[in-house]
């Protein structure tokens, strides 16, 4: 792990605060465990501060700024002391990076927190400098590029923006032996989850979700893989209701069995 070093310049390993979003903690614990294992297998010193709950996105997304404030403040207090914060969610990380300033601008530790909170894939590629993924995953996989990770964290090039194509998630998964990343007709259309949108606009939300699933099916995917469990929960809900043979998996669950270096 030569690329990783603590920010204080000492030769100790950086201390990572693991941020497991509330719904992952309660509903998808296996995604949290997979994330923890992926990081620990890299030799990273990971800590899970138990006081953590939620980043506040449901409230912020609903326009309730004052109900978001206590959660943003707690987050800073809990995670501000780590060298890095890593979460298996693009959306929650974007909340910290792109929206927390409204409540925390000017706080001494906030600049540090904002610039050192990472989504798992970007942490692996940009900070831990993982270049090699050694493992087997003989499946046809459709990659769901969730919007906030894509367009707010720039985990990849979005199809609208005319810059050189790149994709950090594909870079990791694509190295697995036997994996077949299928080509979608619409590479990054929204699945329609959108937080409270999923219930406020239930009909349009479900239509969007079904259209995404149909695209993955047409491309021959057996598994829809993503880095945001929220989108996967929405897609899985539709898949299970319609008893389709597809499965959803978080990227961490796929990388869990591989050796990263």
């Amino acid at each position, binding site marked *: 792990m030569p690329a990783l070093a603590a920010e204080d310049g000492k030769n100790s390993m950086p201390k990572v605060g693991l941020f497991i979003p509330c719904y992952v903690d309660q509903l998808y614990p296996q995604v949290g465990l997979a994330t923890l294992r992926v990081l620990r297998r890299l030799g990273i010193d990971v800590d899970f501060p138990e006081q953590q709950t939620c980043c506040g996105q449901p409230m912020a997304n609903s326009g309730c700024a004052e109900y978001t404030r206590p959660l943003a403040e707690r987050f800073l207090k809990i995670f501000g002391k780590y060298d890095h914060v890593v979460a298996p969610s693009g959306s929650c990380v974007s909340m910290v990076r792109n929206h927390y300033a409204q409540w925390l601008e000017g706080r001494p530790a906030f600049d540090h927190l904002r610039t050192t909170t990472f989504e798992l894939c970007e942490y692996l590629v940009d900070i831990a400098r993982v270049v090699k993924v050694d493992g087997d995953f003989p499946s046809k996989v459709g990659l769901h590029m969730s919007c906030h990770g894509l367009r707010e964290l720039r985990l990849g090039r979005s199809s609208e923006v005319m810059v050189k194509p790149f994709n950090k998630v594909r870079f990791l998964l694509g190295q697995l032996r036997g994996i077949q990343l299928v080509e979608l007709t619409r590479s990054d259309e929204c699945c329609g989850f959108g937080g409270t949108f999923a219930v406020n*606009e239930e009909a349009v939300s*479900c239509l969007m979700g079904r259209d995404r699933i149909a695209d993955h099916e047409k491309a021959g995917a057996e598994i829809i893989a993503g880095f945001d469990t929220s989108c996967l929960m929405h897609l899985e*809900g539709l898949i299970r*209701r319609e008893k389709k043979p597809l499965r959803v998996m978080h990227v961490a669950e796929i990388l869990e069995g591989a050796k990263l270096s």
Partner: protein
Amino acid sequence: MTGHAEKAAPFVADDARVHWHDQALWFVRLKRDRQAESIPEWEALRDAAAAIKAHTLSRIADYLEEFERNAKTNGIQVHWTRDGAEHNDIVHRILADRGLTRLVKSKSMLTEECHLNPYLEARGIEVTDTDLGERIVQLRHEPPSHIVLPAIHLKKEDIGDLFHKELGTAEGASDPKYLTEAARSHLRQKFMAAQAGLTGVNFAIAETGGFVVCTNEGNADMGTSLPPVHIACMGFEKIVPRTKDLAIFLRLLARSATGQPVTTYTTHFHGPMRGGELHVVIVDNGRSAILGHETFRRSLSCIRCGACMNTCPVFRRSGGYSYGYTVPGPIGSLLAPLRDSHKFGSLPFASSLCGSCSDVCPVKIDLHHELYAFRQELVREKVVPLYKRFAMAVLSFILARPWAYRVAGSLMRGIMPRLPRVVVYGRWNPWGRQRELPSMPGESFRDLIKKESK
């Protein structure tokens, strides 16, 4: 208040039609992608356009006055209007004072915004929209459903039926070429008989006092070349400082709007035709208030290309009418509540905040962040219903207390699997109408991590 979700319901219910609409607009988005890709400096163009717009908005009064001075020198008559009523009145007076009763219009979303057509028609003026799509919706007594593609919600069969009734085409005929020919000869008569022509303005140039109108059908040119009186109506944000700024905006506009390298007709007007009159009506109609709003003023940068509509997964699946405002889609979801937050309070929520609109916008309006921010306005103004605010207060209370969070989580995971399906999937649960809930695990991550060896 009937919200976007309710208004979208009938559109969403027609699965075949909604997918056809989605596909038609996605096709335009793909054409835009191909054109944008063909310009190596595309992103630099967007940056430049955004910067020019920001600069112009920061001193818009100066540029408008410069435009007025130069336009007057060119022999253009300039009218300033505070709102839609004043705008309609001025247009009517220009016509009435000269005894003109037959007006042909090329596409102008501003006149839709001001409801000019019914105002003039009530005063005995025959108004003919000459953009094909606009003529179609005018004959149907409907507003446009999209700012660039006004009749995108209609299929050729719908238009065949309409033209059969209104223009006497053969019953059941839906061949686009045949229908377009019929519209063409119908409109030709209107052009020949017109006494005045009205156009919108895509760009007004401060340093020359001229302006540019972009169309694909040449109808603006027909409408302004034949009759002696030309009235051009513009929202005040249409101003650009210099002629050379057009080199940025014209390259972005058609590519973003329809995926064409340039509009078929890009007409520069710098004065009245010989013996004729040219009027420019500059409209505020709420724009000053938006300009004064620090967070949302950037929405005035919009060049009305419609790209945010074509790319919006919600717009494509809910149709333009579900927004209930002249400008629908992501940009309309800002402009409408900026005008009336109570009437249009559901629109900032009619978005999954996917951000595709912000990435596609040629002038880089950060649309999805502005929609996110506008939701806070709506909560402050108590437009968001009390029960929703209360639910968030409760959620926030629980999430701010780890013990309450743990208890609530265990209760949910413990109780849900034991409840009968009819209860879990009852009417209270919009998530479950078409989706299964996640299967509730016995233990949370924070329980499981205790068993995890370091």
